[in-house]
């Protein structure tokens, strides 16, 4: 393993040294393809982010794929209703590994202004492992770009070996999450306890 200082010294002389892990993650981080998938008004900001003014293409994430088979990133942009939640989970299941999720906006994080609605899911993190959450209602395109950069940072820092290696290299992590079913009053199950463990508040 080459030291950071030596690497910088070599770089000043025009010699670039890298490891296979860095090269692999560099390629992965700069070619994140999102799924064309908008649920509500946040999707308008997502469209704006991919257009010329904000130009998501600078970060290699402009290729919005209309099929989950070709996408790496699911941007949950908008209010997830309980009717839509099974579809979202199923689309996530159909995406190939490695896959990442950005929860965009207050609704996707927690239900947002519609949290009191009987038909609104209180956050997509009840069913899916969210990597980056963007606050805002709706978040500006810059916020989405910042989220993509945060995700790229996360991808770049992932070790290819070890216990916290990315999920596509870990055979123990399941590829699919259980799709909730429409129950009589709520989705069944109302949450996936494997991905959603809310902190329990103890009142004294």
């Amino acid at each position, binding site marked *: 393993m080459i030291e950071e200082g030596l690497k910088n010294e070599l770089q000043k002389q025009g010699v670039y040294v890298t490891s296979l892990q860095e090269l692999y993650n560099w390629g992965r981080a700069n070619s994140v393809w999102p799924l064309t998938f908008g649920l509500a008004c946040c999707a308008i900001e997502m469209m704006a982010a991919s257009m010329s003014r904000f130009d998501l293409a600078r970060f290699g994430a402009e290729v919005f794929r209309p099929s989950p*088979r070709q996408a790496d990133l699911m941007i949950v942009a908008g209010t997830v209703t309980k009717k839509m939640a099974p579809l979202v989970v*199923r689309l996530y*299941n159909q995406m190939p*590994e490695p896959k990442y999720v950005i929860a965009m906006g207050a609704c996707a994080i927690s239900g947002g202004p519609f949290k009191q609605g009987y038909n609104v899911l209180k956050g997509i993190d009840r069913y899916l492992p969210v990597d980056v959450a963007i606050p805002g209602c709706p978040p500006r395109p810059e916020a989405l770009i910042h989220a993509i950069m945060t995700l790229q940072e996360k991808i770049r820092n992932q070790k290819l070996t070890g216990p916290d290696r990315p999920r596509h290299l870990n055979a123990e992590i*399941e*590829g*699919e999450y259980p799709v909730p079913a429409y129950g009589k009053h709520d989705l069944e199950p109302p949450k996936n306890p494997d991905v959603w463990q809310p902190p329990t508040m103890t009142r004294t």
Partner: protein
Amino acid sequence: MQTPENPYLVLVLLMAAAVGFALTPLAAAWAWAHFFSPQKPGNDKNDTYECGLASKGDAWIHFRSEYYLYGIIFLVFDVETIFLLPFAVSFTGLTVGAFVAMIIFLVLLVEGLVWAWRKGFLSWT
């Protein structure tokens, strides 16, 4: 400049290089996926459709066949239009035989329309 023994040798070499240039990344990607990434198939992932909805029912269902009548009646007007336009353009230069043939053709088509009309296919109520 010295000419090579076979002038096509350079082309063959370039061809091999081009094919290798295309196949090497594909082979590397395949090898990486095959040897390092575990496969994670599942029911949802192997599903045929990608719209998010679970597919239900059978693809082998019956369609109502009444629509074919409308298709045929449409064809009457469609074919008539196609042949009437050149007929009208060259009308002054036609022989009597061609004129009679065209009228027979039109009558045949109109007969189909009359038949459909009398059977009541044109009334929607």
